[in-house]
């Protein structure tokens, strides 16, 4: 951009005149817009919900339409972990480590009955974690066994709404569970 055009920018002039307050809210809006429309999920699935998550990512349902885009194979590059499937006691420390390795801001979606509450393994089982919220803070719960791709899409949109409510001036009011 040439310096002449830069100085003619009407928005910058508006910012200059309004003394800073408008700028703060605008940063919120820009950050939330950017974060909520570019949520990168972690490649993580432990059972049949994972198949449904793959279907959601594939061309028929295609959650790239909603800005939840590329599966990242590393937790350091991922924004959201979709816990798709049963978490057994042996897997629990691995899940916790993956969550800890993700950089903030990080979000968690519990997909399916197993991740929400232990699901069909709630009774008479010796090895299943009764809901991932016992290990990591969960933002969105999606019921179903497994949920249909439409349900996952709805859950993702709910997460995006939560992200859009965030403000950098009052982090304590954040609705994202991992921020508290």
């Amino acid at each position, binding site marked *: 951009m040439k310096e002449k055009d830069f100085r003619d920018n009407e928005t910058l002039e508006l910012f200059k005149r309004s003394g800073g307050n408008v700028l703060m809210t605008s940063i919120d809006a820009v950050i939330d817009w950017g974060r909520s429309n570019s949520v990168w999920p972690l490649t993580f699935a432990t059972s049949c919900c994972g198949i449904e998550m793959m279907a959601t990512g594939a061309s028929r349902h295609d959650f790239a339409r909603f800005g939840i885009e590329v599966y990242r194979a590393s937790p350091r590059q991922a924004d959201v972990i979709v816990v798709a499937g049963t978490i057994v006691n042996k897997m629990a420390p691995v899940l916790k480590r993956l969550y800890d390795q993700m950089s903030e801001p990080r979000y968690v979606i519990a997909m399916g009955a197993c991740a929400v509450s232990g699901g069909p393994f*709630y009774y008479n089982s*010796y090895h299943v974690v009764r809901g991932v919220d016992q290990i990591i803070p969960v933002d969105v719960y999606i019921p179903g066994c497994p949920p249909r791709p439409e349900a996952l899409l709805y859950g993702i949109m709910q997460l995006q709404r939560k992200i859009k409510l965030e403000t950098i001036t009052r982090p304590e009011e954040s609705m994202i569970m991992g921020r508290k």
Partner: protein
Amino acid sequence: MDNDSLKARILEIVPEAQQEENKQYLTILVPAAKLHDLALKMKSTTDLAFDYLICLSGVDYGKQLAVVYHINSILQKHTVVIKVKTDDRINPSFDTVSDIWRTAEFHEREAYDMFGIRFNNHPDLRRIFLEEDWKGYPLRKDYVDEVNIVEF
């Protein structure tokens, strides 16, 4: 080979064997002491030629513990189910078949892990899924775990 002649051939090797009725496959209950000998002959005899152990499962019948072998012949295209049972719940043990079908090595470790069934002469009998320091055998009917299990 059809089921009748299969049964006759197995009865030749183990006369004490009994057939269980109304099963999908030909199911034969043999005494535990004769198991390894029978398995070896089933593998090496040319007309039987059972070269493929499909699955090896532990079973808890309440009073008895059992191991079920699903064995198939790719050459002869026939399948048979062999069962062995024991009343000893404290120290149940059978002879290993891992020297005959190598795949049994992991299957027997699983049966040991979940049911506590020991296999004599197994090369590496230790837990396969659960932690090394796990107490008890969780797929047994009398397994109690007051911390983790929520009774229905």
